[in-house]
């Protein structure tokens, strides 16, 4: 491409030039606009050729997907509440539903990326967190380092999988499949800064309209340092399995390594002392 903001790669494809045009993209998922149609789940599965992960009746509202995982990269949550008269326009006998399409958070400080011993998991030029499938050797360490239970090892394949943020589509200048398939604008894709401004405007509008329980979930104050995929939800975000104070596991490194060093020192000294003073043969 002639555009100076693009670089042509060896394989002939063009990527955005990180020096001249860092375009950090994001997802803003607005649960107040979600109708629970699951088009995002279908679009994701189709575009990315994600294998099926079972057809099970969960018995949990209309959510038979239940969680993100190695073969579920978008997941529509069905949060049920007893009716509140005058809220939501439902009859008093009807439960109210809130839907929210969950996805990998593409953390600013990503536990999976930090812990990956092969360098398979990288930060892309779009700011997203990407697992390179040709490098992953399925050690499983990322699985226990994701504070959101997103990434998992696929038992048949052996490698770890999660949302790619449609890296292939973004490279081609397209938006991710889920965002493109969303019929209500609940899943917005775009420049992260612009999305954050849009979210602030949306919250202000909802609060002004009386929906005062609408909040933004984006763990910027936590050690995770913010998410590239953030959410607008109603009420306590924990109802959507979005934790209040997530931690990137690297926060434990310093104390744990200090303990290891102390233990190693004491054990080395103990061994030397035992043989120097206690050795009787």
């Amino acid at each position, binding site marked *: 491409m002639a555009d100076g903001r693009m670089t042509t790669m060896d394989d002939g494809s063009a990527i955005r030039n990180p020096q001249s045009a860092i375009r950090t993209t994001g997802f803003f998922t607005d649960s107040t606009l979600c109708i629970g149609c699951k088009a995002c789940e279908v679009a994701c599965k189709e575009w990315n050729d994600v294998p099926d992960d079972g057809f099970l009746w969960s018995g949990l509202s209309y959510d038979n997907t239940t969680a993100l995982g190695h073969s579920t990269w978008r997941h529509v949550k069905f949060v049920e509440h007893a009716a509140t008269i005058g809220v939501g326009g439902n009859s008093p006998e*009807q439960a109210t539903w809130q839907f929210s399409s969950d996805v990998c958070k593409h953390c600013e400080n990503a536990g999976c990326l930090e812990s990956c011993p092969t*360098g398979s998991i990288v930060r892309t030029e779009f700011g997203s967190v990407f697992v390179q499938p040709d490098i992953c050797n399925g050690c499983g360490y990322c699985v226990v380092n994701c504070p959101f239970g997103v990434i998992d090892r696929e038992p048949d394949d052996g490698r770890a999988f999660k949302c790619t943020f449609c890296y292939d589509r973004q490279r081609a200048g397209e938006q991710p499949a889920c965002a493109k398939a969303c019929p209500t604008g609940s899943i917005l894709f775009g420049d992260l800064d612009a999305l954050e401004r849009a979210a602030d405007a949306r919250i202000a509008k909802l609060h002004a309209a009386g929906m005062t329980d609408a909040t933004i979930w984006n763990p910027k104050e936590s050690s995770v340092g913010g998410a590239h995929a953030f959410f607008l939800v109603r009420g306590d975000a924990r109802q959507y399995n979005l934790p209040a104070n997530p931690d990137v596991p690297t926060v434990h490194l310093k104390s744990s390594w200090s303990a290891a060093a102390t233990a190693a020192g004491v054990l080395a000294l103990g*061994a030397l002392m035992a043989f120097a003073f206690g050795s009787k043969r």
Partner: protein
Amino acid sequence: MKRPTPESERRLDELRERAAQHQPAQQSSKLSYHDLPLLKPPVWTWEIPAYFFVGGAAGASAMVAFAAQLTGANADLVRDARRIAAIGAVLSAPLLISDLGRPERFLNMLRVFKVRSPMSVGAWTLTAFGGAAAAAAFEIATPISSAAAAATGLVMSTYTGVLLGATAIPLWSRNARMLPVHFGASSFGSAVSLLELRGHTDAALNALGLGAAIFETAAGAAPSPTPRRHALADALAGPVPLLLRLFNKRKAAAVSTLLGSLLTRLAWVEAGKASARDIA
């Protein structure tokens, strides 16, 4: 043929009343999503805790060999300790590789070095330790190779605690400070136990074994580490060998220490799986 009875009809009335009172599913008071866990449980099977045991004991054995060598202890003891270290290093690799989802790609572990990934640090440490321990066992470049095996062996015996501690699994990260100490102490307990079972009677081994058993007893008695159902593992690692050593039953203490060391590691990994399924 079934006949309606007063009981059967009362039951049907009860069902009708309960159905009439039915309220929609509620979770307003509960701050969880349908009580589904947030985290994914570890995918590791027995090979990983078995490696913690084998690699830890091997690493500690290299340090014991070095200490014995420096202080001029029995040459047979030095030789056997070095051999245990080398054999442990050799056994560690297949345990780790077989647990990979793509075992044929194990060399990708050495593609990069990431100081912030305990798994990466561990892969490189095992590589260095394996080389040094093998060299020391064959008495190649011995003062340097045995010192290198001891230094990397100390990391081998403790880093696995960091590997578990610095994760998102609540039980493991709560014990991020304790786990490296626990694994280190029981690794030394295992190393001296192996040497005692090999027939070595040096009093220094008993002193080290006693120290490890005292620490493991204290750690096992501390509140919360492993769940109660792992009490057997904790007992075999700490109080049982402690008592046996006090009564000078060294070989019995050695067997108990080895079993306890293996079982506590299996227990910690299993307990991590349970911890991941907890509803926050």
